[in-house]
């Protein structure tokens, strides 16, 4: 079981060695990364059969004193997604050793976030994830990318300070950083206004990467300036790991009505502003960026429901978005320009257009696609919650879904309309289309096996929301409250 640490250690080791290897052979540096990623996928598959959840102490120091990894089905699923999505995005042809090293650093940091069971450890690897994304955005060296990255860096820096203040507040009251021990002490020590303030600070800090409402100004700039495959990775993967981390912190440490209300309000604000801005967007990439803000807003609304149902709703939306958004960004490799260029695109690229229709239907939430079930979970959860705020949020979501449908179907209509634009979009590269197709295929497969998947997700969510189980898993029987 201790081998789970390899999931983080191996990508980081590869990253450290890649620049040196790249000085000898650039090809070797480019190929080493995928090999390690495949090995990591194999490792995750091996861990899948083990009896979960399980806690692994790093350094042989039992938690709470040492840092621990916490492996449950949700953590393993996200770790698996990390390796698969990064492998899929791997730049086989254009990649430099530096880029390969940065991607491996991204893999190591995101996997570490998926498995981490310690508040400050989350902070450290969250920063590593930021630093690796900054490096990747500027790899191509355009001036707009430099400027967008700097603005992103400054906002992230502000987030870092807020996160740090939140950690300091938590430490003042509890004297510990281990999530299990925090979960044990939270009802006593972090219940009042102090705890809520610490939560808001940490939420805003982590929210920068998770595209949370007030701190997401960087999203359209960075996704527009970065290479498309990277935007897909940032929207599909990096934001989701921030979401997972927030979920852990929320469920274990700050599980209160007020915290859920904060999430409902900020999530709804993100959904409304994101989808409205996407409706106004005149080009494909900005439309995707704003839609990503909207979808992540929906994830936070899901978490705002609270309990296992809330976890399941939020994670379902997040997983769906994790498949759909990278696929759309791969399509954007050719459709990246103005929406007007896409007039009649269905005749030039019928398969790609059909794939887009599928993804759009799923995003809006048309049955029987997975997006429908995800949205249904959010809506039913809000209905079951029953507070005035929940009903208001529910109304807002249904209303804005119409806007979402309007702009997505407006584009579909343009695809299938007559007439040629002055400058048509360039042809889609075969590999980009294949990648989008693979993700779209996964979405269709999920629609077919929605019942077993739903059962699995329900079990995983109940486990993730089971705080006493988490505490005993990490701290042993003695830790039970």
């Amino acid at each position, binding site marked *: 079981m*201790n*081998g789970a*640490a*390899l999931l983080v*250690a191996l990508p*980081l*080791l590869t*990253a*450290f*060695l890649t*620049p*040196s290897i790249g*000085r000898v052979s650039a090809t070797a540096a480019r190929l080493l990364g995928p090999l390690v990623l495949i090995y990591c996928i194999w490792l995750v598959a091996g861990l899948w059969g083990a009896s979960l959840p399980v806690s*692994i*102490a*790093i*350094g*042989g*120091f039992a938690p*709470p*004193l*040492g*840092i621990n990894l916490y492996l449950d089905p949700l953590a393993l699923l996200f770790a698996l997604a990390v390796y698969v999505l990064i492998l899929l995005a791997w730049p086989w042809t254009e990649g430099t050793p*530096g880029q390969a*090293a*940065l991607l491996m*650093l991204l893999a*190591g*940091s995101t996997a*570490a976030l998926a498995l981490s069971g310690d508040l*400050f*450890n989350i902070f*450290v*690897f969250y*920063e*590593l994830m930021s*630093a*690796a994304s*900054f*490096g990747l955005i*500027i*790899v191509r*060296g355009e001036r707009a990318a*430099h400027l967008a990255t700097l603005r992103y860096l400054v906002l992230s820096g502000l987030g870092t300070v807020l996160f740090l*203040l939140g950690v300091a*507040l938590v*430490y*003042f*009251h*509890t*004297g*510990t*950083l*281990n999530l299990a*021990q925090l979960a044990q*002490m939270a009802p006593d*020590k972090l219940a009042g*206004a*102090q705890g809520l*303030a610490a939560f808001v600070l940490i939420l805003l800090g982590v929210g920068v990467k998770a595209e949370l409402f007030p701190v997401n100004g960087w999203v359209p700039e960075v996704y527009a300036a970065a290479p498309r495959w990277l935007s897909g990775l940032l929207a599909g993967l990096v934001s989701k790991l921030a979401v997972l981390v927030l979920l852990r912190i929320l469920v274990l440490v700050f599980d209160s009505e007020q915290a859920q209300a904060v999430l409902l309000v900020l999530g709804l604000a993100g959904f409304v502003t994101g989808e409205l801005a996407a409706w106004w967007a005149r080009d494909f990439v900005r439309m995707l960026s704003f839609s990503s803000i909207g979808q992540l807003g929906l994830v936070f609304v899901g978490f705002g429901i609270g309990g296992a149902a809330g976890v399941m709703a939020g994670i379902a939306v997040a997983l769906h978005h994790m498949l759909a958004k990278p696929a759309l960004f791969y399509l954007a490799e050719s459709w990246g320009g103005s929406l007007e260029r896409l007039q009649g695109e269905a005749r030039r690229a019928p398969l790609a257009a059909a794939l887009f229709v599928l993804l759009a239907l799923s995003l809006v939430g048309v049955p029987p696609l997975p997006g429908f079930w995800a949205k249904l979970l959010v809506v039913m959860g809000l209905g079951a919650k029953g507070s005035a705020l929940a009903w208001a949020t529910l109304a807002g979501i249904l209303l804005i879904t119409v806007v979402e449908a309007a702009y997505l179907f407006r584009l579909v209509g343009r695809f299938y309309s007559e007439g040629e634009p002055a400058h048509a979009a360039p042809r889609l590269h075969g590999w980009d289309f294949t990648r989008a197709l693979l993700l779209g295929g996964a979405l269709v497969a999920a629609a077919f096996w929605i019942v077993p998947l739903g059962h699995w997700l329900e079990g995983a969510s109940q486990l993730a929301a089971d705080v006493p189980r988490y505490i005993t898993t990490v701290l042993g029987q003695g830790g039970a409250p």
Partner: protein
Amino acid sequence: MRKAASLLFAGGLAFLLAVLVAKLPFGETPMVLGKQVLAQGAEQTGTANLVTSVVVGYRAYDTLGELSILFTAALALGLVLGKRNAAAPRDPDAGLVLRASADLLLPLLLVVGFYIILHGHLTPGGGFQGGVIVAAALFIPILARPSRGLDHGVLVWLESLAGALFILIGLAALFQDGAFLEPLLGKGELGRLLSGGTLPLLYLLVGVKVGAELTGLLVNLADAEAVE
């Protein structure tokens, strides 16, 4: 307008924090982890400096993440600034006095730096603090003679090697049926230079890596072509 809004926002934040902070138990915090470290730290890790026992013992995994961040920043900085244009003019060398004192400082600072790194488990200091001083030692001569430059290859290899060794020492414990980053070797007598098992070794690697990375970072910045 924007200024007023920002002032309002920051004022709100400050007020909120001030109200909250007034109730913090300053000076008598619960110290749940801290008490355990104080009680068991010396025995479990064999280091006299308990901050070191946390940095490269209990939380060595965080330190690995931190090394990676510094590595990433140095790598990204190199990518941003790119290869130096060979034709671009460099700053002229400094005068004789500065050059001579830079040469004098190099060995002195190196000794101080490595002293601080190697005594990190006994006295205040360690890999980070010593690494910064090592970087200063290597950078000052370059500042005095900008025309000479520095071989980046050596730095890249040093960084790679130190980082890889840090992880490999961690993995060595894993392959002996221990946990990742578990301290190995005998703990020795508390307070001696050769004590604390692999912890001082890890701190040495941290020092080398930090020193190499910061030197590379500074040299890259100094080499950047000036904006007219």
